[in-house]
């Protein structure tokens, strides 16, 4: 979608993902989030004179893993470069990054669009170190610098300019995030900044081959902001073109409070980073064996899982996509199926009640270990054998979720066993019919929709425990 049918939007994303290594990329300091300022630092990550970087092998492994998950070519020879610029949160005055020889190149990622599956090219994936953080607080005329984050390993994943709308961009981000979480290289937390996104966006008249002048957008720290910022920017650029204005190549910041993008610097003001090969590190040569070892260690990826769920469990695509969106959720589902749960029933309960309850608490399934697949399977069995109705089951499930108690125990404690014998149900029905003579008459006169009214009344009287099939049968018999 573009703001105007005459124009086409071209978007490329640069995603920074913080790698889940225990230690920093060039020293042994911890990467744990939230420690007191400057407590996770050493001479290397504070840029002390004479200190030298040593590459963390795990960071390379994670970058290769990501490359493999996105069908990239893994470079057997790559190297680091220095990106030179001055900022107080950059202790060495340069960032160690990769420039001309990144670790991964030429991959792709498939996304779902309204027109079907679309393949988005991955230009490159490279490793780099994060900077520290400037803190502006206190009364003095100074800012403070926290270097705990300096040297935390990052991976920059650059897409080809293949995205054509904000929706595609955010779908790409979601897919990417899912993959990163699947392979365990990044926790994907956008609010904490472990997943960050910059976008290059331009607009061109439909049918024009060459790209429009691109604008780089920064500071979009949620999926929603990525979409909103792109929407705003596309509208702005389209209007400018319509008004005959020139688009300036520049970097703009998303201001989420005002809902606008604001110019940060133009191309003329852009930094000259004076990249050159990092002489303190030897080039990275990767053994083919190692790549194969990492490839073997890759888990089933989301795309593969979705396909398999459709085939193996005859689930609709919608269910498969949703279940596969988070690996722990998919695993939870499969565990339930393995324990004998009907796949579609399990999927329904997960997508419906389980997700609703988790969302209410803002939790993910791993954060709720008391709720086990076996409990759902048992409950589904109790529905199937008529012990409880589907409706009662919702109450039972919520209770199970909250207390971690088994369905049977919940049912017993709350007296939720279904009334499934005619002997117990008949007196209740008789009483309801006796209390509502007018409705009985109308029913008998042909207003058969009233059956629903009688069912409702009986259900209320039995607190929902009446077996629906039996109730229907008995009602019809008594009313005929």
């Amino acid at each position, binding site marked *: 979608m573009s703001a105007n049918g005459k124009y086409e939007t071209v978007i490329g994303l640069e995603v920074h993902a913080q790698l889940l290594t225990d230690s920093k990329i060039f020293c042994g300091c911890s990467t744990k989030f939230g420690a007191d300022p400057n407590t996770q630092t050493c001479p290397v990550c504070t840029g002390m*004179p*004479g200190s030298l970087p040593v590459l963390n092998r795990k960071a390379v492994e994670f970058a290769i893993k990501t490359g493999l998950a996105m069908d990239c070519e893994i470079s057997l020879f790559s190297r680091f470069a220095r990106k030179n610029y001055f900022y*107080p949160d950059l202790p060495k005055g340069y960032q160690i990054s990769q420039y001309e020889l990144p670790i991964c190149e030429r991959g792709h990622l498939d996304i779902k669009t309204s027109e079907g599956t679309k393949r988005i090219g991955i230009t490159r994936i490279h490793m780099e170190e994060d900077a520290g953080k400037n803190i502006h607080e206190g009364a003095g005329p100074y800012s403070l*610098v926290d270097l705990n984050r300096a040297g935390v390993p990052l991976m920059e994943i650059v897409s080809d300019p293949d995205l054509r709308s904000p929706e595609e961009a955010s779908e790409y981000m979601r897919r990417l995030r899912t993959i990163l979480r699947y392979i365990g290289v990044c926790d994907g937390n956008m609010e904490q900044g472990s997943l960050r996104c910059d976008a290059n966006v331009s607009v061109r008249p439909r049918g024009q081959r060459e790209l429009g002048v691109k604008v780089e957008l920064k500071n979009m720290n949620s999926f929603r902001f990525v979409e909103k910022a792109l929407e705003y920017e596309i509208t702005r650029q389209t209007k400018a073109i319509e008004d005959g204005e020139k688009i300036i190549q520049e970097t703009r910041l998303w201001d989420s409070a005002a809902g606008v993008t604001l110019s940060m610097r133009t191309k003329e003001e852009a930094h000259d980073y004076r990249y050159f090969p990092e002489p303190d590190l030897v080039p990275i040569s990767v053994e083919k064996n190692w790549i194969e070892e990492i490839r073997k260690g890759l888990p089933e990826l989301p795309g593969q899982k979705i396909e398999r769920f459709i085939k193996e469990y005859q689930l609709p695509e919608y269910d498969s996509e949703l279940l596969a969106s988070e690996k722990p959720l998919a695993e939870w589902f499969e565990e339930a199926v393995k324990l004998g749960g009907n796949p579609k029933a399990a999927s329904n309960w997960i997508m419906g009640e389980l997700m609703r309850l988790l969302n209410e608490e803002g939790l993910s399934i791993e954060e709720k270990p008391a709720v086990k697949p076996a409990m759902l399977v048992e409950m589904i069995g109790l529905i199937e054998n008529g012990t409880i109705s589907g409706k009662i089951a919702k109450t039972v499930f919520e209770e199970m979720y909250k207390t971690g108690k088994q369905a049977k125990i919940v049912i017993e404690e709350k007296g939720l066993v279904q009334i499934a014998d005619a002997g117990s149900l008949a007196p209740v029905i008789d009483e309801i019919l006796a209390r509502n003579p007018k409705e009985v008459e109308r029913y008998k006169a042909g207003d058969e929709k009233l059956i629903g009214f009688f069912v409702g009344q009986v259900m209320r009287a039995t607190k929902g425990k009446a077996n629906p099939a039996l109730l229907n049968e008995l009602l019809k018999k008594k009313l005929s």
Partner: protein
Amino acid sequence: MELYELGLAGALSLIKEKKASAREVLDSVFTRIRNVDGRVKAYVSLTEELAYKMAENAAGPIAGLPVAIKDNMCTKGVRTTCSSKILENFTPPYESTVTERLFKAGCSLPGKTNLDEFAMGSSTENSAFFTTKNPWDLERIPGGSSGGSAAAVAAGECLAALGSDTGGSIRQPASLCGVVGLKPTYGRVSRYGLVAFASSLDQIGPITKTVEDAAIIMNIISGHDPLDSTSAPIPVPDFTAVLGKDIKGLKVGIPKEYFVEGMDKEVEKSVRDAIAHLENLGAVPVEVGLPHTPYAVADYYILATSEASSNLARFDGVKYGFRAEGKDLMEMYMETKARGFGAEVKRRIMLGTYALSSGYYEAYYGKGQKVRTLIKRDFEEAFKKVDVIATPTSPTPAFKIGEKTADPLQMYLSDIFTISINLAGIPAISIPCGFTSGGLPIGLQIIGKHFDEETILKAAHAYEQSTNWHTMRPAL
């Protein structure tokens, strides 16, 4: 003979024979420092108290013996200035690998020696504090940038010292002060803790009174360091094992490009005599060509300054060292660098920044890398025919203080014979090979193959042991 005149091996044998103690050596050295350092000015910081404390419980191959350290190697708890105003009050909270290894070997730290600011210079005149004097003639420079270390060794203010060599900074001052200086193969010695000037060229090495002492120090400081990725995981031989072996049949390359017009006649004669002397010892001189030599100095000043411009970026007033006040961040940066760095350092930062700028990168840094490869290949070709290459270390003996300060290019040419070796990453040693008629030392440079310090030590030792240049001491 006074104890301070001894080298490491000499002191060790006296101690072994119980004719002297390490403590007496230390006393002699500190007395000497008190007597002469006011004139020589080799040290930026003296650590007498620490030296005695270290000597007390010292154990190891050089237990209690004082080895001076160039003040661009970080010493934990001991001020490390790089002879720069910007680090004047910087005390590192960590130890460089070389000093850690030396201290583990029992060495005692007498003090930190003067250098050209951030090792940029050939005379110590670029020190932000003072110029070190050549012990052979106090009106002359000791060479640089490790001029403090070379002068301290020559003047008997320590038994040995460490220097660092980016384009000749160990060998040229060793030559000008009449002592031994070895630049090891790039990657032989860890750079962890050495404040970087040009990371791909910097290498730490010994400055000593004898070749044997250089070998002793090499045994201690060499070898892979997990903290320096560019240090080579290559086994370290016992460098003293080759000493005393003969050099019969050793092929010594003589590059015609190193005996050029405008070279000091006395230097040329001494070096040619030294080569003839090697021939007398059984070596075979072979003429070799190093055709890209004329480009070395220009190439070096592109690559070294490019790296320096990035390496020195961290001295920004934010985290440590000197900070100037400014009304905002930009002004603080500019004032800190303007006032914290000396003229030569600023000149090199500007040169390097320019060479790396977008639009110029390929023409300068990119081309510089290619030329570096050609220079490396020159040596590879030459070493197919010879075992070592012999040249003068410096085109002239020590010059007068102030003589070249107005003309940076003339100063840069002091390293014309040493620079290529750093670009090629190979080892080279400078040893005393004579004196000018005015009594100034002259040095012979012996260049070796990658990781073949043994052969140059063997050749240097054979020459040294059959001459007596190394026994000469300046009158102070």
